[in-house]
Each structure stands twice: as C-alpha cells, then as structure tokens.
C-alpha cells in the first residue's frame, strides 16, 4: 500500500488516488499538424522504465487535484511529488 504525498493534503494512502500514467506526454498543442506516426507516438508510446518514473495521479478521494509523482517502479519508493500548477482559487 503506497503512501503518496499529496502536495495539497499531505501524506495519504494509495486507495485515495487514481492512477493517470506517464506524466511526460503533454497533449500536442496542434494535433492536426502532426504526422500519423508522431500522433501515434504521443497516443501509444509511453515511458516504461524499470526505475524512476514520472507519473500522474489524481487525489480522487481527496482534493481531486491531479499531481505529479516520481516513483521507482522497482522498489515503489516515492521519490517526490508536486503540484502541477498553482491551485486556482474559486
């Protein structure tokens, strides 16, 4: 059971989060300008390292913020976590 540091709420149990996968694939600004190969690479090819991995999680049972987490896929150690951008105030 992972313990993930939510930058907004503090350390929380894994069960409060949902996984969002590789954090290193921002959506292209203009998909129409991409070739089929480039679009496919963005859509289907992800980082899959045996080691440290930057990934997205959503604190879905908490503040519902999407956060970045650097986690080791061999040891599950959470190296760091961060807010993706300053929280908007409503």
């Amino acid at each position: 059971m992972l313990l993930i540091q939510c930058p907004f709420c503090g350390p929380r149990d894994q069960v409060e989060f949902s996984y969002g996968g590789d954090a290193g694939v921002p959506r292209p600004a203009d998909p129409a300008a991409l070739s089929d190969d480039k679009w496919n690479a963005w859509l289907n090819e992800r980082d899959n390292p045996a080691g440290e991995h930057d990934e997205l999680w959503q604190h879905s049972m908490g503040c519902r913020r999407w956060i970045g987490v650097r986690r080791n896929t061999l040891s599950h150690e959470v190296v760091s976590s961060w807010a993706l951008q300053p929280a908007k105030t409503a």
Partner: protein
Amino acid sequence: MKYSIFSLARNAVSFHRDWPLAWRSPAPKSHYDVVIIGGGGHGLATAYYLAKEHGITNVAVLEKHRIGGGNTGCDTTIVRSNYYLTANARFYEHSLRLWEGLSQDLDFNVMFRPRGVLNLAHTHADLENQARRGNAMRLNGIDALALNRPEVASMVPDLDMSPTARHPILGGLLQPRGGTARHDAVVWGYARGADSRGVDIIHDCEVTGIRRDGNRVLGVETTQGFIGAGKVGIAAASHSSVVAGMAGLRLPIESHGLQAMVSEPVKPMLDAVVTSDAVFCCVSQSDKGELVIDGNVDGYNSYAQRGNLPVLERVVGAAVALFPSFSRLRLLRLRGGVMDMSMDGSPIIAKTALDNFYVNCGWCYGGFKATPGSGWCFAHTIAQDRPHELNAAFTLDRYTLGRAIDERGAGPTPWLH
C-alpha cells in the same frame, strides 16, 4: 531418453540414478542464426518451433536468471480461447489446439486438463455480451455454451446463487475445452524439447545491449560477452520495453503488477475455472488442491513483482462473495507477476522497423495460455521474415493505422484492459 511408465519403472530399479539431464547448460557460442531474448515459456516455445517447424537449430535462448522464473512461474495457468474479436479468437484457438496435443508433442506431461472455463454473468448486459461472445466463438469454430442459472448452480455448487446477492449470478458462458496446465512443466517441456533439437539454453545471461549497424542488428551484448546473431527476437514479457529500448525502439507497452493468490491445499471441491468480469475475479483449484485466485492489475506501472494490499483485499472480497464457504480457507502465498500491458489489450508478434529484429510482447493477462501459439507464430515470423496469417493482425503499426484489436473497448489506457 523417452519418458514413459516403462522408463520410470526401469529407473526405479536403478534408484533413479541414470536419468539424463533434462537439458544441457552450454556456454554461449560466438554466433547463432537466431537469438531469442527471454527464457520464459514464450521464448523457449519459439526456439522449439524454430527447430521443429522450420529446421532452424542454431538458436540460443538467453535467460537473465533461470528459465521460467518470470511470469510463467507466477501465473494462474488458465488456458482458454473464449475471445470475441476474430483476430484474438483464431490465434488463441490455434494455441488451445496446440495445448491439446502438447504433452505428446513434447514427450513431457504438461498436465493440461480441460476442466471448463466458466465466465459468470451478473447483469442483463453481461448476458448479452456473453451471448455475443459465445456466438462469435461458435461461428469461429470454438466451443462455447450458454448456461442458465440452474446449470451454473449444478456445475459449481459452492457459488452463491442467491438472487439478492450484491452481484446476483444470472447465467454464464462456458468453454468446456478451456482448462489449466502446470506452469513449470510447460517451461521444462519446451526447454527439453528445444535442447534435444540442438537449441542452446543459456542461463544467467542478461542482455545489456544490442549492437546495430544501421537498420541491421548484429548481435547482443550480454553478461557473458557479445553474441552475434543473424536474427534477434525479444520474448521478454514485462521487460520488453527495456530490451527494445537497447535497440532504440519504443513499444506501446506498460508493465503492471498482477498478483496471483494461492490458498492452502484442500480436498477437491471446485472443478471448473470460474471467472467474473463484473467483480474482477478468477478462481480455480489446482491439481494439488490449492485455490488459485487472481483479479485486476494493481493499477500502476511496476516491475516490483510484489503484491499490493488494496487489490488483494478487493479480489479476495470478490472471491468470498462468489464463494461464501471459502472464507475460512487460508491464503498461503502471493505471487507477484509483471504484465506487459499493451495499448489495446492484445498482443504484438511482429517485425519491427529494424530488418532482423522481432518482438513478441503485450500479453497482458493472456500470456500463459498463448505460450504454444505465441512460440509457433513467432517462430514462423522470424523464420519466414513475415507473419503467419494467425498473427498478421498483431503488428506494431496497427495503432498508427487505427486498427487496434480492443477486446474490452477500453482504449489506449493499458491498465484498464
């Protein structure tokens, strides 16, 4: 030595002192016609069929640790071909047919037993999906039967058939020819078969690099030195991304942890393999008497081969909900496997952008049952430098082309397949 009751009796007289080695442990040669990376079931089967079907015997299987030590060793060993999409159905059916003759073919009892794989339906939508799948299977020449509630109840008496259950059981789809086999026996059988045809199985030989000249692969760097190769095939399961990365390729694969749960052995009480997609749970009883249970992937990238409590609780909760009398049985072992989850839930057995480099990966949950078919098709693809009709759809470029084989319809989110 041919294995039989007679050889067993002959050896009994000699106190079993004269059994030959099941396979050799040779040092690697400097060059092979084909090098297969990965000594699990798929890699060994590929080598076996390269030798047997294509006469290519100058083959090495390189294994980082020991053969069969990866996912083959922690699988729930279920064999079935109950797929809806035609590309999957025909491939897995071919594999199932190979299973049915595998013990004789390998002269090694892989203990395949068609005990029936029963998929439970809990809602009308499940029933309709199962009907569609069962009908597609039948039209593809695969056995399938729709069971109603009483038929499910009589086939698996321990199920909670209460109509007021949280997920009441309305019926099921049965593939009678589906079943289970022994995971280690499959590995050993293929290893012995490949070895006896001249294939070198190299243990403790980790691939550390892939030497390329332009679009051609020259061979592999390993912890036992450079090994030249006419062709190189990857059958490295969850480590496919890592190995392909050495050749500069990115694969549409993510590695995710999946746990199998094994109970203490009890007297036989559950014959069929029972699965439920609604609660994500699959339960069977091994020949030794252990219950073998698995469910969903843990849900995040992992190479750790270790289980995870939330999924364990969920899957066991589901198993106990389905089988309330199993609650007092005890979990003996957790096995943590790492699944190579593809972007559409279907496998890849394909040529790559490099001339003489081939990949076999993306098995998701389906790797064990695919072992014979995967090896058979991969051997064909490597030997002929083109896919067989059965794996023609399992290409790498299907994602680019928009021809994904998405059995679950979950889209490019690998941990949802």
